[in-house]
């Protein structure tokens, strides 16, 4: 591939998610007149709030070229414990804190495995995924738990006319975007993902940075679980399942790279989360065969990862050092 063709191709790849969004709007809008309504879109936004929050946490980890496959399991364990507490009469605020605490703990375990024990991120978090799901199922005794109405009240509460889950998700997005673009920590994350060797040479605290991103991801998972609970009102044995995929897909669709150093929470990841939910909302509206859902989800993820890989390799090729044939002052 000639270098001169690569830059326009890069541009094209960058536009792919937006193009997909437009395509989704057009296609589903044409197929169902209930799709393009304000009500429906509010629905979509509210439904995507939990995914968005988890995806924001995932973005932090992806920026360092890592991954956290255990977010769904962390959600599950947190929801299970909180659910049990709620059913035992504990106040809502304590339950919420517990969910966040579980998230922090889960993130800490992952952080230790990756930074201290030097395990590859996907294997470490694959293991914690299984352990977490097992724990979750044990806590809930594999039975669905119907939680007190206080949780659902959270879900339907409104602040300033905006549904509470949206407010919370919005706040998370805002804070995350601020951290990533306005704090030294955030900028150093981008540096670490771009060039780990140079980062070490420059004296960046790499262990601390890596630990932090897994902690953030864990807490976001806990919070995402809370938002999901507030809309479902119960914890089923499948709670949180496949959230890790949705989170990775949302992030990668939004421009975050699996290879590190690239990505934005806003608009990127958020757009990805909304896009994902829109697609499913649309599928439900046109009454598509539910058996096709996994096929569609995986195709979307595949497409997103493909675009990311192509983009990364094009950039490497463009950046290859060239010798200047008319070099120097001699």
């Amino acid at each position, binding site marked *: 591939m000639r270098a001169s063709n690569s830059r326009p191709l890069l541009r094209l790849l960058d536009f792919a998610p937006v193009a997909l969004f437009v395509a989704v709007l057009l296609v589903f809008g044409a197929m169902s007149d209930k799709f393009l309504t304000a009500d429906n879109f509010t629905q979509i936004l509210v439904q995507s709030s939990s995914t968005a929050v988890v995806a924001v946490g995932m973005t932090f980890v992806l920026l360092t070229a890592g991954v956290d496959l255990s977010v769904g399991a962390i959600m599950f364990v947190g929801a299970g414990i909180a659910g049990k507490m709620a059913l035992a009469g504990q106040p809502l605020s304590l339950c919420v804190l517990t969910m966040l605490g579980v998230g922090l703990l889960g993130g800490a375990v992952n952080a230790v495995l990756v930074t201290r024990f030097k395990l590859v991120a996907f294997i470490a978090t694959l293991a914690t995924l299984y352990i977490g799901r097992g724990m979750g199922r044990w806590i809930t005794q594999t039975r669905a738990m119907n939680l007190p109405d206080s949780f659902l009240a959270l879900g339907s509460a409104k602040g300033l006319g905006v549904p509470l889950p949206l407010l919370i998700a919005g706040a998370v997005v805002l804070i995350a975007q*601020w951290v990533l673009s*306005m*704090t*030294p*920590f955030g*900028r*150093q994350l*981008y*540096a670490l*993902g*771009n*060039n780990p060797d*140079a*980062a070490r*040479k*420059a*004296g*960046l605290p790499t262990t601390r940075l890596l630990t932090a991103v897994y902690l953030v991801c864990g807490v976001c998972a806990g919070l995402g679980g809370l938002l999901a609970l507030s809309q479902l009102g119960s914890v089923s044995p499948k709670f949180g399942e496949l959230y890790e995929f949705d989170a990775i897909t949302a992030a990668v669709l939004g421009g975050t790279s699996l290879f590190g*150093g*690239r990505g934005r929470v806003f608009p990127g990841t958020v757009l990805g989360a909304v896009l994902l939910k829109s697609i499913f909302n649309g599928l439900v509206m046109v009454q598509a065969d539910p058996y096709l859902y996994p096929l569609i989800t995986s195709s979307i993820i595949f497409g997103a990862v493909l675009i990311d890989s192509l983009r990364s390799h094009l950039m490497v090729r463009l*950046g290859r*050092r*060239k*010798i*200047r*044939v*008319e*070099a*120097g*002052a*001699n």
Partner: protein
Amino acid sequence: MDFTPNNAERPKTNQEPVVVFERIEKSFFGVKVLQGVSFGVGVGRIVGLVGENGAGKSTLMNLLGGNLQPDAGELRVNGHRYTPRNPKDARAAGIAFVHQELNLFSNLSIAENLFLTDFPLLGIGVPWIDRRALRSRAAELLRQVGLDHSPDTLVERLPAGERQLVEIAKALGAEARVILLDEPTTSLSSRECERLFALVTQLRDRGMALLYISHALGDVLRLCDDLVVLRDGERVGSGATKDFTHDRLVSMMVGRQLNQIYPERRAPIQTGSSESMASPDGGAVLQVDRISQPGIVRDLSFKLGAGEVLGISGLMGAGRSELARILFGLDPFASGEVRLSGELLTGSPRERIRRGLAFLTEDRRQEGLCMEASIADNLALVGLPANSRTPARFLDFTGIQSAVTRMREAVKLSAKATDGQAVRTLSGGNQQKVVLGKWLLMEPKVLLLDEPTRGIDVGAKFEIYQLIHQLADRGAGVLVISSEIEELMGICDRILVMRGGEITGEFRRDDFDRERILAAALHSSKA
């Protein structure tokens, strides 16, 4: 932008120099790289450090920059003993090392790169970057280095020359008093070079001490106030630049005595030089015809005869390794032709190996060996297809074993190393022998060698030279890329010199002249 050349009118100061190297010694793997080097760098002076590859310049820089520690001798900065354990210590002492390989993060802006570990914050409790202060401080540094970009520009948008200026700006931002520049002009255009020189002069005038390493002797003579010449780890000359001429520098760099032993070289059957090639491809085993790849090589042509040892000399960045990679099929080229024994050479490395081409790369650890695999496995790797039987390609273990044993003997691999030992445990010399043995196993028609004796002790070097000659005597064509002119003169029948992606000189054995070869590498005049 103007600059005052050569500081001739400035009064000499009587203070102790900012940086002092005193009788510095350093060895690597038993090879002495610096043997008691002493000199100083004064405040408000630009000191040029010149010498051939392997003379010890980079080692000196790395000692000052905190990447290495000396075996003996003392480093002093500002009068105090200076013993950095890492680059951070060096930075704290006010020493900034601008490497040839830039350490910038392309996905961040210039300003962010400049202050990555030191962001100005709004002092309001939360770690909020003060973007305005960041921008203005960065702009100030950019102004000082003469870079006319917004501080918010992403580094990935900058060409190499400007990235270099950003690195210097980084040094200024860290309030360095001493700046080391390692081959700063390799990737710069003439305009960018002029800008760099103006900046360096300015910094000097402001009281910085600068240490400037470069092969571009013309630049060095123009820019530097004082010069230090290294050869084989010793300081063989120093003083004010006005006392030196270009030719005197070259002869000091090159020296007179040959301090290595080379096997005797019989005249080859035929060389590829223009005179002995009567017909278009007159017996040349490798024929390179006007190979061009923009930015890498331009209009390159030469022939390699069967039984000939052809050396390719030149400085780093001249395009020699890139040429070898193009010949082996690892990198593409835009136009031109390559022929092996008269037939067009195309395809993947595997294809070319089948045709009889072999390639010993510059970096044996990354590209030459499977470090964790055994000696036997590494030796056998290229020859495996030949030692396997169809249809299922079962391996002929007896054949492989005998080949491995044969090659071990042929390359005189250390008897202490067992076949099953991981190559990681071997010395550099033995490792290189394994790589060489791997290629000799396939009895190549053309062998490309890139820095075959880098990092190897004298004894092993001699054995490798012998192997090269033996191979050539059996009728193969051998191409040797090396940064050591003396080595090429010792073993080759003919030497080509490359500079800036072109061939700038050709020397036959009776014509070998170290100064002229080096000159061809430095100038673009044809010898």
